[in-house]
C-alpha cells in the first residue's frame, strides 16, 4: 500500500523500535529492501545483532561500523528486483566509543589516557545506556556524511524502549551533573566540601578511596571532552525530533510486546516525535477468528467419525481410522488457534488507533535468513496496510 512507500520516500531517517524478540532486525532489513524496490538511491540499514544466517545473507560476515553494499548480483540471484542500492552496517559499540573518544579528545595524550584507563571499557559498556546512545550517534554520523538517501536503524534491544528516546538527554545530564563535578574536584579539597562530605564518607567506606580515585581520574579525563560530547548529544536529540526522522514500532500481537508497543507509540506522540508506522509482525490470518470458521470446525468435529470419514478415506485411499483421527485433531485443535487469532485481532484494532499506518505481516514459515525471504517480507510490508 502507499503508506509505507510514502514513508520511505519522504523521510531520511527511520528508527525501528520495539521490545526484544519481535523480529525488529529482520523488519529493519526488510524496510531497507522495500525502499530499494520502490526507489532509486542509496539506502543504509544499520543493524545491531542480526541472527547469524541473516547476517551472512546481508554480507555481514565481518562486522564493523563501515557500511558494506549488498551485491546487486545477490539480489538478482534471489529474484528480488531492486532499483536502489542497499548498504548495511553492523553496530559495534566498542569501536563506536573509541571513535567518539578519538573525535572529542582535545589532544592525543587525553585520548590515549582514556582508551588505556582500566575502567573505560567497563564504564562505556554500562553507563547512560551507551548502546542506545551509540545507535543514534551512528545514525547522526552516517546521515551527516550525506552519502545516503535513507538511513534505517535497528535499535538495540533494551529493557525499556523509551530509554532510546532518553539516551541523548541522559548524556547531556551526565555531563551537567553535580556528581561529575564533585568527582572531578581534586580529591583532597573535596573532603572539605560540606555538601559532599556525607556522601564521600559513605562512598569511601563502601568503595574504598583507591577505587574512588580511579573513577575520579577517569572522569577528569572525560570532562575534558564535555563540550564535544554535549554538543553532539544535543544534535542527536534534535535529530530525533527532526521532521525528516520517523519511528517505526515493531511488535507481535502477543500481550507483552503489544502493550510495550502502545506505550512506546504514545510516548513518541507525547514527545513530539514522528511515529511513521506500527508493524504488527507474525500475525495469524484474520479468517481464523471468524464465526464461519468456528462453525466449520464444529461441524467437522461432529462428522469426523461418520460417513465423512468413509468418503474421505475412499477418496484418498487411506485407512478410515487415520482419516477420522486426522479430522478430529484438525477440528479440536482449531479452537486454540482461533482463540489466539481472536485476541490478536483485538490488539490489532488497539494498535490501529495509534499509528498513521498499521502494517500487518503474516506469520511466515520459518525464519528469514536470505535475500529472497527479505524480498518477500518487504512485499508483505508494502502490501500490509
Amino acid at each position: 500500500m502507499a503508506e509505507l512507500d510514502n514513508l520511505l520516500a519522504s523521510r531520511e531517517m527511520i528508527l525501528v523500535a520495539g521490545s526484544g524478540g519481535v523480529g525488529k532486525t529482520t523488519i529493519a532489513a526488510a524496510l531497507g529492501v522495500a525502499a530499494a524496490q520502490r526507489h532509486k538511491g542509496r539506502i543504509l540499514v544499520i543493524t545491531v545483532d542480526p541472527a547469524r544466517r541473516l547476517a551472512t545473507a546481508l554480507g555481514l560476515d565481518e562486522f564493523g561500523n563501515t557500511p558494506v553494499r549488498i551485491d546487486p548480483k545477490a539480489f538478482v540471484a534471489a529474484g528480488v528486483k531492486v532499483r536502489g542500492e542497499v548498504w548495511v552496517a553492523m553496530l559495534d559499540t566498542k569501536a563506536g566509543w573509541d571513535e567518539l573518544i578519538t573525535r572529542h579528545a582535545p589532544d592525543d595524550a587525553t585520548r590515549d589516557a582514556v582508551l588505556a584507563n582500566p575502567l573505560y571499557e567497563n564504564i562505556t559498556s554500562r553507563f547512560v545506556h551507551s548502546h542506545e546512545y551509540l545507535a543514534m550517534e551512528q545514525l547522526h554520523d552516517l546521515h551527516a556524511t550525506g552519502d545516503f538517501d535513507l538511513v534505517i536503524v535497528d535499535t538495540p534491544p533494551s529493557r525499556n524502549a523509551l530509554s532510546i528516546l532518553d539516551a541523548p538527554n541522559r548524556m547531556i545530564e551526565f555531563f551537567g551533573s553535580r556528581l561529575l563535578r564533585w568527582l572531578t574536584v581534586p580529591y583532597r579539597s573535596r573532603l572539605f566540601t560540606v555538601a559532599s562530605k556525607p556522601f564521600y564518607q559513605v562512598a569511601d567506606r563502601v568503595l574504598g578511596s583507591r577505587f574512588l580515585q580511579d573513577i575520579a581520574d577517569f572522569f577528569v579525563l572525560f570532562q575534558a571532552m564535555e563540550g564535544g560530547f554535549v554538543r553532539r548529544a544535543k544534535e542527536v536529540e534534535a535529530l530525533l525530533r527532526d521532521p525528516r526522522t520517523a519511528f517505526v514500532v515493531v511488535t507481535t500481537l502477543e500481550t507483552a510486546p503489544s502493550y510495550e508497543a502502545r506505550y512506546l507509540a504514545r510516548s513518541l506522540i507525547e514527545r513530539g516525535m514522528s511515529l511513521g508506522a506500527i508493524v504488527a509482525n507474525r500475525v495469524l490470518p484474520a479468517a481464523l477468528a471468524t464465526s464461519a470458521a468456528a462453525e466449520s470446525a464444529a461441524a467437522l468435529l461432529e462428522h469426523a467419525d461418520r460417513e465423512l470419514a468413509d468418503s474421505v478415506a475412499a477418496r484418498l485411499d487411506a485407512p478410515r481410522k487415520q482419516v477420522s483421527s486426522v479430522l478430529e485433531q484438525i477440528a479440536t485443535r482449531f479452537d486454540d488457534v482461533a482463540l489466539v487469532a481472536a485476541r490478536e485481532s483485538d490488539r490489532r484494532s488497539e494498535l490501529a488507533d495509534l499509528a498513521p499506518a498499521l502494517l500487518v505481516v503474516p506469520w511466515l514459515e520459518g525464519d528469514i535468513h536470505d535475500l529472497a525471504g527479505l524480498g518477500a517480507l518487504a512485499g508483505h510490508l508494502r502490501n500490509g496496510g
Partner: protein
Amino acid sequence: MWVTGKGGVGKTTVAAAIAEVAARHGRRTLVCEMDAKGALATAFDVGELGFEPTEVAPQLFAMAMNTEDSLREYLRLFVRIPLLGRIGPLASTFDFVADAAPGVKEILGVGKLCYEVRERHYDLIVVDAEASGHIVSQIGAPKVIADLVQVGLVRDQTQWMLDILDDPMRTGVAVVTTPEEMPVTETIDLLGRLRDETGAHASAVIANRVLPAMFSRREQTVVDRLDDAMDLLVDVAGPAVATVVDAARLTETRRSTGADHLDRLRQWLESSGDVADGLPIITVPELFSRGSGPRVVSLVAQALTDELDPEPPSGAGRRG
C-alpha cells in the same frame, strides 16, 4: 535459582511458576524481579511489588529489586556510620555512581539476594533475572568488583558472594528459550558465556511454548493430501473448512520448525562437554493463552510439575 532468557520468551512467567511449584511443595520461597518492569506483579496479579517482600500466596513471597533500597539496607547492616538520614537527597547521586562504577549497581542487587541466601530467610530464592544480554554482567558483578576494586568494604564483601554464586549446590541458572532461531542461538551463546565469564553453573534449559505434535507420520500423509478431498469436507462443514485445515497446517509447520531448533539446541548440549554436561531441556507446552497473569503461571507451574515430578505434591490442590 536465576531464571533468564532472551526478551519475550516468557522468563517472568516461568520464574513465577518455578516459585509457585516450590511454594506448593511447602518451601518458603522468595521470587525477585530484577529489572523492575512490573511483569512479576502482573504475573501474580498484585498491585505493585516493592523491595519489602509481599506474601502473594502461602509460603510465596515476591519483591522487586531496587538498588537504592538495597544500598540503604546494606549500609544499615554493615556500615555503621550515622549518616543514613542524610543520604536521602543524594539518591540521584547514588544512581550516578552506580551507573558509572562498574558492577556497583549489579552487586547491590546480587548482594541482597546472596544475603538472603546466607541468612537462610528462605528455602529457595527464584530470581526473575535480566534478559540474557545482561545476566552475565549481573551475576558476574562480584567477580568484576573483585578484579577492579583493590580495597574497601565492597571488595571484602565479594568473596562470600562468590562462594554462594559459584557453588552448584546453592546457585543455578535456568535459561528459558522458545523453539525459535534467535532464542535458541542466544541460549547457546549464554551458556558459553556463563562458563567463561562467571563461576555460576547452568542448571536447566527450559523450552517454553513448545507445540505438541498433532499427527503421526502416517496421519501427516493424509493431511498433506487432504486438498484432494476438500469438496467432501466443504459439503459437510461449509467453505470455511479450508481455513480450519489451513490452521492445522500452520500449527504443524510452526511445530516442526520449532522442533528443528530444539534439536539444534539438544545436539549442542550433548556435544558441549563441560558447558552443559547432562543439562536437561525441560519442556513447557504452548498454552495458547498469550497472556500473563496468575492463570498462566498456574498452568506453567502444572506443566513444570508434570515434567519434573509426575507425582502430585501431597495435600496440595491445584490452584486456578
